[in-house]
C-alpha cells in the first residue's frame, strides 16, 4: 500500500480515493499550483487536508465564508486533529492575540481575506514555514461570480508578499471567465487544472410551470404529503418559510423552517435535527445548507426562479450525496423573472447610492453592509462615473442571468445539458432519469410516502434525561 492510501485509511477512514483526488494530491505534493473545480459533496476538503500530513509546514486556508470556517475546523477536530484554528473577526481579541503568538503550533490555520490585512497577523505568518495556501470558494474572487467578495481580491498582494508559495484554488462552480480571474488574482504559475464534471447523475430535474402562487402551495402540499423526503424546500422570503412549514406541519409532516433571522442556538438545533433524521423536511431561505452533512437528501424543491445558475447548482447539489436517485423540482410562474430580479436587486447599490458614497460626508450615511463593503473597495480604484458604469454592467449581467435561467426552463433542450453548458462543460452520458424535457417519469424517481402521521409525543423530562444519559 502506498503512503497516500495508508493515510487515507488510517486518518480519514476511507477505503479509496474518489475521482481525481489522488491526482490532485500528488500534484500538490510535487509542488505545483492546482486549481480544482468539483461539485459540492465530492470530497474537496480531503484535498487540502490530506497533503498536510505528507508535507512540512503549516497549511493556510483562506475562506470568505465565515459561517463555513467554523464547520471546517470542527470537521478536522472530529478526525482527531487538534492543531487547528480559525483566526477571524469572531475570535475574541485576547484569544486571537494568544493564537498569533503561537502560530507555529498549528498545522491548519483558517482565516478570512479581511484578516490578511492585519499587520500583526501578517508578520507572524511571514515567520512561518508554509506548506501551501488554499483559496477556498475561489469563485468569490471574480466579480463575475455570483458571490463576489471584493476583500478577496486583496489576497493577490498578500500572496505576492510571501516567497514562492504554492496555491490550491478550490471551487464548486466556475465558468471559463471565472477560472481566468482566479488564475490571475492568485498569481498561479502554469497550474494543474482539474475540472470534474459538474453533472450529478443521481439528480433528476423537473421544471413545473404553474399559474400562480396558490398553485405552488397546492403542488408542494401534494408532493410533500405523498412522497418521501428527506428534503429541502427553498423559498425567497423568511415569511414564506414559516407559512409553508406551518401548512405542512398541519398535514402531519415533520418539518421546520430555517432562516438567518433565527437565534444561532435554534439554527444549530434545527440543522442537527435534520441531520439526525428527527426532521424530514426543512423549509428555508438560501441561508440554509452550507456546512450541512447529510447524505440521504432525496428532494430539493424551489418555488421560484433562482437568481443564478451557480447558486441553483449549489442548492440542488445537496441532494443525493449517497449516490441514490434524487429529484430537484422547480416551480415557476411567468412573472417570477421580475420578482427574482427584484429580490436580487434589494441590496444592490443604485446610481444614487454610488453618488452618495463618493461624497465627503459619506461615513455618516447608513447603507446595507454588503453595499458599503463593495463600494468602499471600488472607491479606492475607480472614479464615480466608472463605478456607476461598472454597476450598470453588473446589474445588466444579473438580469441576463435570470432571463437565461428562465429561457433554459422554457425551451425544449435538456436541462442537464444546459446547466453544464453554462459552465462550458459537455454532457457525456445521459442518465436514465434525466429531466422533465427528456420524458422523465416522475413516479419512478419518487418513493411513496409511508403514511405515518407525525404525532408529537408528550414530553417527559425524566424519560428524556434517561435517553440522553442512559444508566
Amino acid at each position, binding site marked *: 500500500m502506498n503512503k497516500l492510501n495508508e493515510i487515507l485509511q488510517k486518518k480519514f477512514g476511507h477505503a479509496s480515493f474518489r475521482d481525481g483526488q489522488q491526482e490532485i494530491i500528488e500534484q500538490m505534493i510535487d509542488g505545483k499550483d492546482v486549481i480544482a473545480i468539483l461539485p459540492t459533496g465530492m470530497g474537496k476538503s480531503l484535498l487540502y487536508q490530506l497533503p498536510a500530513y505528507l508535507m512540512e509546514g503549516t497549511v493556510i486556508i483562506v475562506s470568505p465564508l465565515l459561517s463555513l470556517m467554523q464547520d471546517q475546523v470542527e470537521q478536522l477536530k472530529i478526525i482527531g486533529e487538534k492543531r487547528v484554528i480559525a483566526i477571524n473577526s469572531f475570535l475574541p481579541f485576547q484569544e486571537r492575540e494568544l493564537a498569533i503568538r503561537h502560530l507555529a503550533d498549528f498545522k491548519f490555520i483558517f482565516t478570512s481575506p479581511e484578516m490578511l490585512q492585519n499587520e500583526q497577523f501578517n508578520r507572524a505568518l511571514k515567520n512561518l514555514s508554509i506548506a501551501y495556501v488554499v483559496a477556498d470558494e475561489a469563485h468569490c474572487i471574480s466579480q463575475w461570480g455570483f458571490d463576489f467578495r471584493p476583500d478577496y481580491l486583496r489576497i493577490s498582494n498578500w500572496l505576492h508578499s510571501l516567497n514562492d508559495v504554492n496555491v490550491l484554488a478550490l471551487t464548486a462552480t466556475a465558468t471559463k471567465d471565472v477560472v481566468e480571474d482566479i488564475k490571475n488574482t492568485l498569481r498561479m504559475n502554469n497550474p494543474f487544472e482539474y475540472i470534474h464534471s459538474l453533472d450529478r447523475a443521481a439528480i433528476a430535474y423537473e421544471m413545473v410551470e404553474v399559474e400562480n402562487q396558490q398553485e405552488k402551495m397546492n403542488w408542494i402540499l401534494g408532493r410533500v404529503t405523498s412522497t418521501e423526503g428527506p428534503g429541502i424546500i427553498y423559498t425567497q422570503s423568511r415569511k414564506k418559510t414559516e407559512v409553508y412549514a406551518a401548512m405542512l406541519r398541519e398535514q402531519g409532516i415533520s418539518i421546520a423552517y430555517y432562516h438567518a433571522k433565527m437565534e444561532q442556538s435554534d439554527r444549530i438545533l434545527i440543522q*442537527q435535527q435534520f441531520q439526525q433524521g428527527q426532521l424530514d423536511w426543512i423549509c428555508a431561505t438560501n441561508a440554509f445548507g452550507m456546512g450541512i452533512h447529510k447524505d440521504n437528501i432525496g428532494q430539493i424543491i424551489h418555488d421560484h426562479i433562482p437568481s443564478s445558475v451557480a447558486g441553483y447548482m449549489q442548492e440542488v447539489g445537496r441532494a443525493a450525496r449517497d449516490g441514490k436517485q434524487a429529484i430537484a423540482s422547480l416551480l415557476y410562474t411567468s412573472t417570477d423573472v421580475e420578482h427574482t430580479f427584484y429580490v436580487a436587486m434589494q441590496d444592490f447599490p443604485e446610481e444614487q447610492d454610488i453618488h452618495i458614497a463618493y461624497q465627503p460626508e459619506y461615513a455618516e450615511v447608513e447603507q446595507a453592509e454588503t453595499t458599503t463593503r463593495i463600494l468602499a473597495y471600488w472607491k479606492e480604484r475607480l472614479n464615480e462615473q466608472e463605478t456607476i458604469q461598472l454597476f450598470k454592467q453588473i446589474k445588466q449581467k444579473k438580469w441576463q442571468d435570470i432571463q437565461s435561467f428562465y429561457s433554459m426552463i422554457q425551451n425544449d433542450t435538456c436541462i442537464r445539458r444546459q446547466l453544464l453548458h453554462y459552465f462550458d462543460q459537455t454532457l457525456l452520458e445521459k442518465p436514465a432519469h434525466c429531466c422533465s424535457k427528456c420524458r422523465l417519469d416522475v413516479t419512478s424517481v419518487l418513493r411513496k410516502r409511508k403514511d405515518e402521521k407525525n404525532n408529537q409525543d408528550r414530553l417527559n423530562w425524566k424519560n428524556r434525561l434517561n435517553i440522553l*444519559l442512559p444508566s
Partner: protein
Amino acid sequence: MRFHQTLLFIIHKISGQRSENAPYYLLKGKKSGQTIQDVTYFQLHAFFSILPQLSKEDYDAAIAELINGNFIQLKESLVHITEKGIEALPQDKKVLLNGWQYRGKEQIFWKRIDLVVQTLSQFRANEKKFVPNQKDLATQHFVKDYLIQHNYREFNLSTDIKREIVHLLENPLLDDLHRTLFIYRLSGYKKAGLTWEQLTRYYQMTDLSIKISFLECLHIMLDNISVETNPRLVDLAKDIHIDTPLTDSAFKTNSLFEKGYTMDEIAKIRKLKINTIEDHVIEIVSTNKNFSISTFISKEQVERVLHLSNELHTKKLTIIKDRIPEVSFFQVRLALTKGEQIHE
C-alpha cells in the same frame, strides 16, 4: 411567570411613579443611575437584566396589549396599574428570578452544562465524533478541563450528573414546565434539543414567556447548587455568582471611596461629572448595606425624607424635595435607597 404577568408585577410596584418605559430598561439591565436606583427603591432585583435582548417593538406591543386589556393606564406620562390589573397579578406565585445576582451569567452556566451533557451522551454511545452545540472557545476549553478533572472516562460522572440534575430540578419551587424546558433544550447522541419555536408551539406560550420560565429554572438551580448536594455540578457554576454586583465604573469609584477620597476628588481623578459619581454612590448603597452615607446626609435628614415618603405614599423626588427644600435631589435619592434597605 409569563411575560405579561411579569410586566404587570413590575408595573404594580412602580405604579404612578415611573413612565411605562421604566420596566423596559429594568428588563434590559440598563446600567444607568435611574434604573439601578429603581431596583432598590421598588425592590425589583429579581427582574434586573433578565431579557437583555428584548426588542422595543416586542415590549411596546406587550404594553399596548396591557393597555387595551385595561390592565394598566397611562396618565401624565406615568404608568398606573388598574383594579383589573391588580386582580390579574399572579397569585401566591413566588418570584423565582434573581436577575440582580446573575446578570446574564446564568447563560455561561447553561452553555457549560449543555456541552457537558452532549459530550457525555456521545461518549456513552461510543460515538466520539460529533459537532458541539456550543461554539465559543471559552466554553469548549472550560468543559474540556472540567471533564478531565472529573475523570470523564469513568461511568460515574454521567450517572452522578444525571442524579444531581434531577435533584436540582425536583426543587418544589419549580414545576414540570421548568423541568421540561431545561431537559429538552439539552442535546445528546442522536437527540438534538428542541428549538424555542418548537417549545412555544408545544406549550402554546409566547417566546418571551418560555424564555422567562427557562431563566427561572436556571436561577433556581444556581441558587441551590452547593458542594454538599452537587459536588459535580458545583464546578460548572464557577464564577457565575457575582460577589459585588457593581458596574465596572461604579466599582472603580467604590475603590476610591475605600481609599478615603471625597466625591469631588473622585470626580476630578476620574474626569467624570459629579452627577455620575452620585449615580455610583446610589449604586454602591444599593448593593452594600454597610457603606456609610453619613458624609452625604445626616441621620435626621434621612428620617425626615422617609417619613414624608411614607406619609404621602410617593417616591417621586420632586414632591419630596418641594416639601424639604434644604435637601438636594441626591440626598433624597440616597435616603430613599437607604430606606428600602431598612425595610428589607
